[in-house]
């Protein structure tokens, strides 16, 4: 890829990604972009799937995405992608909701409304595993994320899987039970900033700028003073909600505050184990496409190790830029 000075990054609404649009609004993006002599446009895509599609199609240079979707959409689509910012893992932001039930085991035989083949599907599989059930023991019904709250108010929907902010709305329903959530599988649902590997290679400035933006914004929003509160209020507003709700969602989002912590998490041996679990689940659900003949078809590069076909690496967990931030070299 050629050297360029202008880049488009897509984002969609999710608690752990709200720092990005806020940084844009607060001028932090411009500050870092100017520093490296480039221009970065953050483009909101209301529909999460569409944002990833646009990235895969090459209309966006980078996108906010989860680890599972980064693997099954762009990587499975043959696009070489690099995850350069590990923002957080879901620590209760995703959950399985039941009505008229005492525990998760009551889900057996029910219709479960969720966004099929998304992290919700993965969470469901992990939840079922914990009560010795299989995916075949329930029937999944694909339901759009924007409509899942409305759907859950309907009497004929008795089980659903969702993420925040929708999950917190569903919890308010009388008689609803949060039967399982992502805090039971820490570190398996990861929220990333992914950019096109070739573009990144030709333009390392993009990676530096993004890492700089991210950690400056994170440290600002963590502050307990008025400034930090103002930042979080602005993010809540951008997400279409209030500060209280947003703070509640942040509580179930395990943000990696410090770049060093993110680098450490990415380099830890459990990281590869969890990634393998996600990958095997994806393959078993046919998400690598009809062409893939084994779970190893797509290579995943992680610090120190490579999972699957090393000759066909399409997803790279690249701590270089977070390391630079940790070292204060940006």
């Amino acid at each position: 890829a050629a050297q360029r000075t202008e880049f488009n990054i897509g984002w969609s609404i999710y608690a752990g990604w709200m720092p990005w649009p806020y940084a844009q609004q607060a001028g932090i993006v411009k500050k870092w972009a100017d520093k490296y002599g480039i221009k970065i446009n953050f483009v909101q895509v209301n529909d999460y799937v569409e944002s990833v599609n646009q990235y895969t199609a090459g209309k966006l240079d980078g996108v906010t995405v989860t680890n599972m979707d980064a693997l099954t959409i762009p990587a499975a689509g043959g696009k070489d992608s690099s995850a350069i910012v590990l923002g957080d893992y879901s620590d209760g932001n995703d959950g399985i909701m039941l009505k008229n039930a005492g525990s998760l085991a009551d889900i057996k035989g029910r219709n479960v409304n969720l966004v099929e083949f998304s992290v919700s599907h993965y969470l469901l599989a992990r939840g079922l595993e914990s009560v010795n059930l299989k995916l075949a023991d329930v029937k999944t019904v694909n339901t759009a994320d924007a409509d899942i709250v409305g759907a859950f108010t309907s009497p004929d929907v008795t089980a659903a899987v969702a993420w925040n902010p929708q999950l917190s709305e569903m919890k308010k329903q009388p008689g609803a039970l949060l039967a399982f959530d992502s805090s039971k599988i820490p570190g398996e649902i990861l929220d990333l900033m992914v950019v096109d590997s070739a573009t990144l290679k030709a333009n390392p400035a993009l990676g530096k700028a993004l890492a700089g933006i991210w950690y400056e914004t994170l440290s600002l929003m963590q502050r307990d003073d008025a400034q930090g509160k103002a930042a979080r209020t602005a993010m809540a507003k951008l997400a279409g909600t209030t500060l209280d709700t947003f703070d509640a969602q942040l509580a179930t989002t395990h943000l990696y505050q410090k770049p060093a912590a993110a680098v450490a998490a990415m380099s830890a041996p459990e990281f590869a184990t969890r990634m393998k679990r996600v990958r095997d689940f994806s393959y078993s659900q046919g998400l690598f496409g009809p062409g893939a003949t084994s779970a190893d078809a797509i290579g995943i590069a992680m610090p120190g190790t490579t999972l699957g076909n090393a000759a066909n690496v399409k997803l790279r967990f690249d701590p270089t830029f977070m390391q630079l931030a940790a070292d204060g070299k940006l």
Partner: protein
Amino acid sequence: MRLVNIRPGRATSLVLGILPVAALVFVYVLASASRHAINPGDRILPTPAAMVSAMHTLMFVPDPMTGRLTLWADTLASLQRLCLGLAISTLSALIVGLALGLVPLVRALFGPLVTIIALIPPIALLPILFIMFGLGETAKVMLIIIGILPVMIRDVAAHVETLPTEQMLKAQTLGASSWQLAIRVALPQMMPRLIHALRLALGPAWVFLISAEAIAADIGLGYRIFLVRRYLAMDIILPYVAWIALLAIALDWLLRLANRRLFPWAGSS
């Protein structure tokens, strides 16, 4: 000879009609080939071969989970919803459109309401639909009905309104009551228009069906498209869209044939 007077024969028309479609297909194949020359893994414009192989699987290889042949099962489920929605809408448009077009009192009473409903985008009402009709088949059929019925009613009612006054008067002097005017004068003359309105509604009906299936379903053509949309599986989306178009064209053609056969007197108008 004036351009407007050149009337191509049946065979010429057929050839001419196929030309632009064939040109489009040709342009696609070229574009797809050139994209694949650059990136053999391109998903956006899949090659015809890739589409054929994807379709082959969906048509002939039973799904390991459900044991169904995916394409046929999807088609059956979607057509059931579509036909139910179309049938209910057509029947309602017949009755309501006739009443609105013929009886000024009914028009005064319900005309504004129908106009308002016709102008509310049903997509915006989805949460309310869920609450009222649940998430099953009813909600999907209802979305189709809410989406196309008001437009059909307005169309048909407007047509009934434009039937010549003289005809209505004539029938009344021949002793026709309001009821007889409705069933013997307005209704038969409305039928070709109703079928025409139904043909025009086919497009929107598919839109609402797909939107409904996109939101909550576990089977159906729209469900499949939106499911694989997540993975940019154009090798499935494009043939599915073509298949939907083919089904729609077949329905359209059937309706046009019905109009010609059933209402020969309307041939010229």
